[in-house]
């Protein structure tokens, strides 16, 4: 187990750090530390000679040979000094130890100065080795080695004693690494003496359980929310359908009024044409030619009335068929329905087509939008006339293409939209009409059709005399819309 502890992955970093610290110490110690010690050794020799030189000088000067011998012998006792040569006028001395031939010797020469006459009286040569340095280096290396061994033992014992806790920590780390919010996790089960680590494991288990609970709650909330959204969408769709139906009902009412206007003239003509037929027949003045002429008048007017009914029926056709159509034709048909009303209200209109364009959409839906815009324009003009602000109404419908968009502008001289409500006129149930004619859903339906179904935009701007409603529908994405429709 101890061996395992020493080669464990965790301990690898310890040994790595240990070696990274100790190897440079050893290398630098070998190079620089020895150099420093060598210098220090030389300084010691110099210091020793400087200290002993006066004593040597006095001994020589006072002919104290015995004391000189003792002094030199004491110097030789110093571990690194291997040999001493003294050369003076009166003495020649050579003291030496048993010199190890493997030792590298350094030589240091020093002049002994007479303390009285200040002249050189002797020369002393010290032969010294670095035995002391070697011993110190050896001691340092031995110390490092023992520290190394000591650290090894201490670390092995510590690791052995905390291995259970370390394994527990590993298990926790593994569990945390494997943890996923979408994965069902087993609780961390530990056999651990450490209260702290047990606490960590316990808290981790609780935390994972809490997260799982929260995740389930969140999923439940999401499902509920999804159901609510779907319900709301259905409600909204139902509401929209209802509003569109209401809008159609309103449009039908208006169209019936238009048809009434349209039919008044042909009915008068038919009435006049058929009024005297019976009398003339009884009087015998109705010849065949005259009868045919009157029948021709009746037939033409009935045909006109029939066409009007067809237009009405087409407009109310609930079929949603995507097709290419010319918006000018659609606008003309709507104007055909409203023509009589406009004439009755003294409103002139014109269609200006700058570019020939084709929309790919449900034609009746665009017609419904155009009908709403033209009806509103008529109502605004009528109101202005009632206020005697204008005497005659003008409506201009422009069709053009710009930057890949088909643009239809419906402009009138009905006084425009008040700036304070310009941002709310497209809201549902918002109306400026004081009488029962206004439902407040026309512009909302129009905007909804253009933006949701035709993927275009409907906006309004005021002009000097009235307002302009602008429809913009992209032309280049028709194929995409076709695919979506399928």
């Amino acid at each position, binding site marked *: 187990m101890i061996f395992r502890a020493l080669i464990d992955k965790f301990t690898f970093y310890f040994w790595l750090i240990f070696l990274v610290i100790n190897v440079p110490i050893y290398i630098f110690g070998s190079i620089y530390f020895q150099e420093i010690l060598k210098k220090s050794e030389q300084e010691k020799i110099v210091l020793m000679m400087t200290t002993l030189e006066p004593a040597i000088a006095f001994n020589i000067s006072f002919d104290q040979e015995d*004391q000189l011998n003792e002094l030199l012998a004491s110097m030789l006792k110093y571990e690194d000094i291997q040999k001493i040569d003294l050369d003076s006028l009166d003495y020649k001395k050579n003291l030496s130890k048993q010199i190890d031939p493997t030792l590298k010797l350094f030589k240091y020469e020093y002049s002994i100065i007479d303390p009285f*006459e200040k002249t050189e009286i002797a020369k002393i040569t010290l032969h010294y080795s670095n035995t002391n340095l070697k011993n110190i280096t050896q001691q340092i290396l031995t110390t490092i080695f023992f520290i190394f061994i000591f650290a090894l033992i201490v670390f092995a014992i510590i690791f052995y004693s905390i291995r259970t806790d370390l394994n527990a920590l590993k298990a926790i780390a593994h569990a945390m690494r494997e943890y996923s919010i979408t994965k069902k996790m087993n609780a961390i089960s530990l056999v651990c003496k450490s209260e702290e680590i047990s606490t960590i494991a316990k808290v981790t288990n609780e935390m994972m359980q809490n997260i799982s609970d929260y995740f389930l709650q969140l999923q439940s909330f999401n499902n509920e929310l999804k159901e609510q959204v779907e319900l709301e969408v259905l409600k909204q769709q139902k509401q929209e359908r209802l509003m569109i139906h209401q809008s159609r009902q309103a449009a039908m009412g208006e169209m019936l009024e238009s048809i009434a206007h349209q039919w008044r003239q042909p009915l008068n003509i038919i009435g006049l044409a058929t009024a005297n037929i019976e009398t003339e027949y009884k009087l015998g003045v109705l010849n065949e030619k005259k009868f045919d002429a009157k029948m021709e008048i009746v037939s033409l007017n009935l045909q006109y009335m029939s066409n009007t009914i067809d237009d009405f029926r087409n407009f109310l056709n609930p079929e949603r068929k995507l097709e290419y159509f010319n918006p000018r034709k659609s606008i003309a048909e709507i104007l055909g329905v409203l023509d009589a009303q406009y004439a009755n209200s003294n409103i002139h209109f014109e269609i200006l087509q700058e570019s020939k364009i084709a929309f790919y959409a449900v034609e009746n839906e665009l017609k419904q939008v155009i009908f709403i815009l033209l009806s509103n324009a008529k109502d605004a003009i009528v109101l202005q006339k009632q206020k005697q602000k204008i005497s005659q109404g003008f409506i201009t419908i422009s069709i053009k293409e710009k930057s890949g968009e088909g643009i239809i502008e419906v402009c009138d001289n009905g006084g425009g939209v008040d700036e304070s409500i310009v941002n709310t006129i497209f809201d549902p149930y918002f109306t400026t009409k004081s009488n029962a004619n206004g439902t407040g859903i026309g512009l909302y339906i129009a905007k909804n059709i253009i933006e949701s179904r035709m993927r275009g935009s409907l906006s309004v701007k005021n002009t000097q005399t009235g307002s302009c409603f602008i429809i913009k529908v992209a032309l280049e994405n028709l194929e995409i819309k076709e695919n979506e429709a399928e």
Partner: protein
Amino acid sequence: MIQRLLFAFLILSALLHAKEYDETVMDIEAKLFPKIAILEEKIAQNPSPYLSITILYKEADYAVAERFKQKIESTYPKKIRDKNVRVNLAQFGLSHITDTDALLVLAHEAEELETIALWANKNKILTFAYEPASLEYGLVSSIYIGRTTKPYLNAKAIKKYDFVFDSYLLQLSKFKE
């Protein structure tokens, strides 16, 4: 004839009273006494350019004193620690001895030696004795000749009269307690 006999008697008498001086000892002392003198603090600090040594002798030792003087002067023909060595001769009487750093006392009677030592020590004049035994009477320094030759210092006199010697000299000297 009587005059000749008287002269011969006087010479013989003088010779009989004269002490015998060893040449080797004289050489050693001539070499060491100036060195010991210059290692005494008061002498070393004396601004005088001379190391003045007076040899105190009795009439019978005049020739010895002369020879001593020659030995010292020949040993130190040049300066010793920036001082020239100047040697004078003087007979016992002391009153005429002035301006000297040290006295080299040759053979004298015991009382005379005591008088010399007392006078010299009181005047802080270093005294050297040819005979080491003369330190018994209060002289300060001599040369000990035994197995080895060492400066011989009178410890009592040094302490009593505050003579201060260089520590290296003290290390290699023998002391008379």
